[in-house]
């Protein structure tokens, strides 16, 4: 099993390698299919799901419903983008949902204490950065395993969020300085929610950083072979620290969106959030042992999970059966990718000898 780390086997494919130059008109779909690399199954599953839902639920393809999907999955998306960096680097940040609770509480408390909008946002980001630094330093300089560190900080951050307000939710709705964030998270321009624009910018920037910067290359190298990365001049400790800082900042940003949406900062943590975030990254084709994958796949993963949820709600599936549908759809979608690899679903792949 140790090699069986990517979602599909064998062909780690060009998902994250530079486009290999072949082009030509037509066959666009086949191109996407081929290029989807490790996330083919999820892409195929997503397409089938969208087709099925558009037919069975007329409301599904309305703009209102689409913006709902975007709004309800932005928190997961932002956390998942942060987690993608950590997982590509060969780590895992179990503390991410707890860190978001702390940064959200920080933002809420600062607002409650009469701080300005910028100070509150800045404070939350700073605390997110700090939490990332704590994880990163313990891992890269004290040399404790990332699993132990983030398991420990998961618990510590959760506790810290509770201590901050004695377990109470901080209601920020009536606070004047909350308005800017409220307007941004809930507003739209020309019918397009600001959050959607933000998500797109975030994903594009993250993808560019991973692909076209020395830092991004270092992250892949670190996850692929730590020793080789070290010997080839990558600052392994600093890169490790950086990915955890990115995860901490992602937690802060996610918590701002969350508080903006819910108009209150709660110390409670959704116990399924961590698993959802990690699941999104992994089914998006990022290998859990690191070194392969990318944010493109993560977006697919988040969308896939989000569309299933939305579909389940729209189709009023009984809450007892939701889990079954959810799990089966996930397994089947990924099995599609496996099938593709084994040539069961040949699509314009060129003949074998």
């Amino acid at each position: 099993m140790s090699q069986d780390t990517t979602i599909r086997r064998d062909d780690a494919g060009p998902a994250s390698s530079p486009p290999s130059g072949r082009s030509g008109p037509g066959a666009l779909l086949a191109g996407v299919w081929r290029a989807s690399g490790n996330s083919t199954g999820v892409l195929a599953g997503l397409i089938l799901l969208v087709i099925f839902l558009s037919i069975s639920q007329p409301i599904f393809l309305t703009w209102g419903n689409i913006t709902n999907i975007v709004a309800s999955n932005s928190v997961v998306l932002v956390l998942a983008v942060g987690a993608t960096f950590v997982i590509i680097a060969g780590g895992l940040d179990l503390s991410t949902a707890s860190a978001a609770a702390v940064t959200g509480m920080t933002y809420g408390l600062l607002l409650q204490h009469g701080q300005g909008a910028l100070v509150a946002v800045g404070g939350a980001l700073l605390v997110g950065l700090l939490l990332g630094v704590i994880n990163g330093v313990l891992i890269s300089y004290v040399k404790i395993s990332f699993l132990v560190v983030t398991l420990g900080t998961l618990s510590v951050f959760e506790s810290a969020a509770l201590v901050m307000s004695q377990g109470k939710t901080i209601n920020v709705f009536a606070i004047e300085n909350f308005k800017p964030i409220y307007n941004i998270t809930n507003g739209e321009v020309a019918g397009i929610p600001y959050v959607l624009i933000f998500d797109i910018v975030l994903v594009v920037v993250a993808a560019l950083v991973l692909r076209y910067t020395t830092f991004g290359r270092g992250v892949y190298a670190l996850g692929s072979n730590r020793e080789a990365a070290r010997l080839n001049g990558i600052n392994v400790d600093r890169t490790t620290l950086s990915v955890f800082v990115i995860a901490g900042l992602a937690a802060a940003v996610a918590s701002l969106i969350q508080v903006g949406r819910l108009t209150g900062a709660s110390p409670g943590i959704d116990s399924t959030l961590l698993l959802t975030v990690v699941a999104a990254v992994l089914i998006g084709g990022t290998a859990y042992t690191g070194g392969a994958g990318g944010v493109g796949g993560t977006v697919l993963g988040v969308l896939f999970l989000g569309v299933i949820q939305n579909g389940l709600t729209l189709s009023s599936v009984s809450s007892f059966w939701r889990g079954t549908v959810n799990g089966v759809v996930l397994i089947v979608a990924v099995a599609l990718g496996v099938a593709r690899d084994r040539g069961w679903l040949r699509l314009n792949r060129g003949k074998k000898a």
Partner: protein
Amino acid sequence: MNANTAPLVEVRGVSKRYPGVLALDDASLSVRPGEVVALTGENGSGKSTLSKIIGGAEQPDGGVVLVDGAETVIANPATALKLGIVMISQELTLAPELTVAENVFLGRLPRRGRFIDWATMRTRAREELAALDVHVDVDAKVADLSVELQQEVEIARAVSSQARLLILDEATSSLSEHATERLLELVREQARRGVAVLMISHRMPELYSTAGSAVVLRDGRLVGTVPLPATPESQLVRMMVGRELNDYYGSRDCTPGEVVLQVRDLASADGALAPTSFEVRSGEIVGIAGLVGSGKAQLGMALGGAVAASGEVRVNGTPVALGDPRRALSAGIGLVPDDRKRAALLPTRSVAHNMTLTWLPKISRFGVVSRSENRRVREAIAEYGVKTSSPAKLITQLSGGNQQKAILGRIFALGCPVYVLSEPTRGVDVGSKSQIYALLQRLTENGAAVVIISSELPELIGLADRVLVCFQGAVHGECSGEQLTEVHLNAIAVSGRTHTEDFGEPS
């Protein structure tokens, strides 16, 4: 010698396609009991693919495999083992977290009743290793051993498994001369006992001393089968690379210049390398020889900053901070470590990204990788002869020798003043070796100082101006000019000093 016995294994018209390459195209071969067949060809010609098909690790797309004259589907390695086909594959197949003893008996642990008999396993593992003249703690974790010792464990496993057909895919490539000799003797002995052997190697002397015939592949196609040692080497090489190889080691037209690399009392923190001092001038190639565990690899790692070390290293007079590969690199020391898999390859990345890893500081501005990346990669692939269907191909899908060329290319392209190359031609075919030697000569002509650490003495003698010999963790002697012979080098490597009287020459 056993031409009339029926073939044990015969392969007829086998082909195998990987995405983008036809690795085997209608290849055929047969091995009889007691026969040693050499399988040769350039890097990427399909040798490993063919042996994997016989070993059940891969399935052919076309063609048939006959075992004992009957058409057989070797569906998986377990089937192959049941048929008596045992393979030592090019990539080590050890379980690094397990002990040496367990790895020797992996898949067939000795049992007493229902339970594993650890005592017997240890004793027998010790015996099997002793037969190869290897003395290692059988309870040690394999991950803690050097590549050479790991290779020995793998060989002990194969040799002890009572094979009818033994496949050695570059089993000697990470062995020292002494260990190689020992293994080849063992192979000949097995053949005398009726075992069929298929050996893959890029070292000509081995093939000539051991094999009875050679099968040559090029681009996945069979070029021909010739008897050995009757066929002259030049003809065999021509069959392999399609041209004559003149001036194998090449030559350089320069005299050593200024001292570029100054090493004073360099010692590794773990004690594997005792304080060592030497200098290398620009335009000079200095070889480092020594037996297993003599500390020669450790010397390279210490120079490249890969391990913690003490002492002083200067490049062009500027001191280099030790124990930090980044500092070593930016000071101009380019290191190629000997353990490709552990310390050099990024297995989940493309050929392109593997190569540009080391170039990143040079080809990026403000942390952003320049657009010229793709062009540079394509140039380097052409220049260093890396055979790949696309730069975007995963590096682990390249043949072993081509992986090595990609790694060398990424360091050579840096234009460093100092190169430290540990086993640079491991697994590289004769034609490409010659190209690499020519490249090295060019690097030195351009003023680089090169340190080559190698267990292939002919290579050191052919290339180096002088050779330092390590013995028990320290440099114990230097040979140059007249004295640069295998006999001299071996003498120091084995005992730590020259026995001048034995040769009757003044030193």
